[in-house]
């Protein structure tokens, strides 16, 4: 299969590879896909108290298109508000990377990973707020959502 130049460029020089501490209250983690399906993406967002995505990191098990899709996603979301990031559509990734039809699922995974990371962050914030309101309530394990792959 011939890859587009942009896919090759991201594959050769992936942006923002790495991990944040998943227990950091300002970090949201999205883990999507499955090893048996041949692709797993972990995308992490560091979100400040104003709801702006300050930084993003990813790790991906998958083909070149999956690596490029997640690399591109981390580039795009940096500096975005949560709402802006929620608005990223997989079709934009397909267009930017010239993904062929057989690789569209890679872009879907990247979109899901962004949404999963934001959902994880929001869940953490809600738990923290609940604790402020009712300090005696039992503490829920932070980052519990990271162990659950969401698609």
């Amino acid at each position, binding site marked *: 299969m011939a890859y587009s130049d942009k896919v090759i460029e991201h594959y050769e020089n992936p942006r923002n*590879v790495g991990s944040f501490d998943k227990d950091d209250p300002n970090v949201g983690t999205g883990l999507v896909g*499955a*090893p048996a*399906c*041949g692709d797993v993406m972990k995308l992490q967002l560091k979100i400040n108290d104003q709801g702006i995505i300050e930084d993003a990191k*990813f790790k991906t098990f998958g*083909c070149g298109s999956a*690596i490029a899709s997640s690399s591109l996603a981390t580039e795009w979301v940096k500096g975005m508000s949560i709402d802006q990031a929620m608005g990223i559509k997989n079709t934009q990734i397909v267009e930017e990377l010239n993904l062929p039809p057989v690789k569209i699922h890679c872009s879907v*995974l990247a979109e899901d990973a962004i949404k999963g990371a934001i959902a994880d962050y929001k869940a953490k914030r809600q738990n923290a707020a609940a604790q402020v309101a009712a300090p005696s309530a039992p503490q829920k394990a932070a980052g519990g959502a990271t162990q*659950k792959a969401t698609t």
Partner: protein
Amino acid sequence: MTLKLPIYMDNHATTPVDPRVVEAMLPYFTEIFGNAASRSHSFGWTAEKAVELARDQVGALIGASGKEIVWTSGATESDNLAIKGAAEFHKDRGNHIITAQTEHKAVLDTCKRLEKEGFDVTYLPVEHDGRVNPATVRAAMTDKTILVSIMLANNEIGTVNPIEEIGAVVKERGAIFHVDAVQGVGKIPFDVNAARVDLASLSAHKMYGPKGIGALYVRRKPRVRITAQIDGGGHERGMRSGTLNVPSIVGFGKAAELSRTEMASEAKRLFALRERLREGIQSRVTDTYINGSMEHRLPGNLNISFAYVEGEGMLMGLKDVAVSSGSACTSASLEPSYVLRAVGVEEEMAHTSIRFGLGRFNTEEEVDYVIDLVVGKVNKLREISPLYEMAQQGIDLKSIQWAAH
């Protein structure tokens, strides 16, 4: 010596034509262009003589007479002719066919077609080392079994079946024994009499001959009957009509002769190269798994899984090396290799497999280059693999509820 890139290590898919084969073929395009079926002039006689020599050369490679060789367009046609031809001719004796789950698609899809026409087909499982157990063949045979089709060597994992033992089992019940011998012939010894084979499919382009030419061995003593699948002028003893492709047949003959005379030394050399590649990789990369038997394996084959690194992602990093992967992403079906699945390799590991096929023209320098490249890419891709990170943290990947999609 400078290395020429890209490096070809996909010799199970096809092989380059040996220059000695090309040389033998050339006169048959221009000077000796006759139709081998022309009986009225010297152009035809000369072409026929060349075809008959090639028949003997191909026959000699498998312990057969040249008279038992039927030319076809390739292994897919040979498999179709053998299986459909035998099933059709012998359908009054029974309707049961036995094959194995790891066979080539040319065999499996032909059997599926016959199922639609009313035949019963048993697709035997294989052992974890990738080989067919003769006892499972014996257990599957019934009074209705007319045909057993088992490959000599597997195209993905290179495992070699105990074909002589299987042949003996098949003959206990008097069924016809077809062997898709494409990957093994010319690489390892194969004798149609020792294995009691009735029909055997061969292909030239897997043994440094041209593409588009194959053969079906059809036993003469005792005579094995099959129904022709292509009708026409009654060429090839009525089993396969069509004007013979003389230059390619000459090339196939030459390729077979070279394989026969050089097999022992070439197998030794390829085995050494394969082991150099395997040891070079495994001594420097952790968590690798060889798929299929190491003991009963084609000398040039290495099928290896690199845990936590997806196969197609890996191939992209190995762009200067032609290899293939059992990963789903390399096929349109999104299913990982059915051969690896049949061998019991889990889906996640099937996605991480790479097949190396070493051949006549690979060198030690190439192998050393590939080792360095593979080690570097696996390390790089593991750095960006969330699965590797989790494994390093001691997280059991099987404990996670992955969402299937």
